[in-house]
């Protein structure tokens, strides 16, 4: 039996699988399908200091092998999340990561400092890459200097480890990754959605009310693999990998690319049991490899120098 535990800053995980932010609400809905304690961790929907209404509908559209979303950071705001959602999650034996969004560094700091005081919040994830907010949000994720400063500021006020979630919509993701590492980030999450659009052939207008949205799902997995592969070789902080994971094999691919843990987003919609079945599948698949712990597979795609067969067992 391969050891499935992984240990990341702030996160002692039973297994390397968690739901991705925004695809799992605050856990309540999926708790009606299975025991959330089975998960490696839970990453909740983006929280902003104040309640946000988000974008008009339609907010989602299907695409070839993926989907677009433009939810627009709808959330009930910091105090409601703290008093209701995060307290509720305490009943489960699972580390919680709070995803944070905002328009200003101060927004991020306010939420980070507040939630990091809660006993079951194990880490925060700075969403500096949400493509669906107009003001500010996107610049944090595309400019290394701004990304670094934001990380530094949050680190000063946050008592739990800080993960920074990177945008794939950049020329050079490695430079952003290096910058936030220099800014003190304890880990990286990657990738957020690609910017995309669909046009309705009847109206001639974008399908999403917001115009463009974030592309997720199987379609983007090769982009995620390539970016995780590139970044993991250039930083020494761990990566939570995500982007198009639909099955255990996909999760493994991200791990071999360089991820220490894996988040599952869109696939929860197709299969509400996606996370537990990926956990089960991974536990099974990993037996093919000659390792004692799944953590040994992180980054194996670039750690091994030749085309040796990895599946020795």
């Amino acid at each position, binding site marked *: 039996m391969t050891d499935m535990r992984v240990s990341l800053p702030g996160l002692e995980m039973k297994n390397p699988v968690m739901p991705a932010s925004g695809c799992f609400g605050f856990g309540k809905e999926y708790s009606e399908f299975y025991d959330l304690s089975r998960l490696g961790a839970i990453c909740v929907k983006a929280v902003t200091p104040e309640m946000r209404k988000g974008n008009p509908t339609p*907010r989602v559209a299907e695409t070839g092998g993926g989907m677009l979303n433009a*939810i627009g950071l*709808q959330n009930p705001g910091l105090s409601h999340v703290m008093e209701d959602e995060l307290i509720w999650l305490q009943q489960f034996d699972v580390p919680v990561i709070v995803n944070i969004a905002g328009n200003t560094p101060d927004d991020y700091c306010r939420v980070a400092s507040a939630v990091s005081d809660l006993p079951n919040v194990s880490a925060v994830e700075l969403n500096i890459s949400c493509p669906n907010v107009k003001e500010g949000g996107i610049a944090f994720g595309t400019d290394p200097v701004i990304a670094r400063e934001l990380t530094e500021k949050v680190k000063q006020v946050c008592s739990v480890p800080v993960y920074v979630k990177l945008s794939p919509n950049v020329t050079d993701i490695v430079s952003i990754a290096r910058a936030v590492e220099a800014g003190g980030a304890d880990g990286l999450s990657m990738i957020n959605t690609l910017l995309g659009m669909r046009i309705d052939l009847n109206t001639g207008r974008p399908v999403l009310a917001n115009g463009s949205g974030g592309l997720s799902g199987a379609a983007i997995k090769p982009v995620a693999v390539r970016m995780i592969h590139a970044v993991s070789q250039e930083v020494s902080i761990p990566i939570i990998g995500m982007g198009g994971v639909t099955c255990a094999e996909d999760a493994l691919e991200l791990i071999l690319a360089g991820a220490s843990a894996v988040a599952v987003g869109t696939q929860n919609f197709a299969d509400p049991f996606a996370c537990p079945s990926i956990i089960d599948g991974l536990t099974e698949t990993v037996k093919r490899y000659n390792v004692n712990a799944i953590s040994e597979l992180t980054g194996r795609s670039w750690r091994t120098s030749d085309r040796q067969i990895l599946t020795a067992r």
Partner: protein
Amino acid sequence: MKRIERMKILKNRPIASRIYELELEGDLVKEMKSPGQFVHLKAADGLDTTLRRPISICHIDREAGTFTMLYRTEGKGTQLLSRRQAGERLDVLGPLGTGFPVEGFSHQTRCLLIGGGIGVPPLYELARQLTARGHKVTTVIGFRSAEDVFYEDAFRELGYVYVATEDGSRGTKGFVTDVIDRHISEWDRYFTCGPRPMLRAVEARLGPDGWVSLEERMGCGVGACLACVCDEKNGSGYRKVCTDGPVFRAEEVVV
């Protein structure tokens, strides 16, 4: 715990222009109670559909352990669905959402059911449950043309039925609201499902004392992704169509 089931397809056959009747068998039927609830279907395995498709429950046969849906082929998902064959299994998540109320009405309430196009199906189970409880059901259903009409006879077994078609090829020429204007004066509660413009026209005429069933593009179908919101009438918030709805009190949401 909620679950999904690979239910057995008993029947999947066209009954009107682009309209299919799909009958499924399985354990999930035991949990289906409220008319107006829906199921979230995986139309096909593989990459052709990333998302499930929401389809209303049209008729629950708890004794037989089956239920029926009616769907119209629109895009990729419903087209793939129409190719599925009896005997195959279909991946079903549900029943989901909050349906129409059937309890708490006074004796022999006069219920007015108004459906348009592919909004008609959930009204059928509603009509059955209301009549079973002794209420009086009058149904007004609107379609584009005669070849689009379905379930007229089925509704007739449960009460009085008016049909409207836009081109007048069957029933009253015009919209359901034309039927209402001309023929309907006495009713206690109304229940409506159909395209937004129809819902708006109905609400404008009949006021807030009714229930409307809304459609919205969905992601998860279970309340987690916030794709499917609609505006609250009084208040700054949103309601989720997939869990708070699809049926709302007319006064509650902006149609």
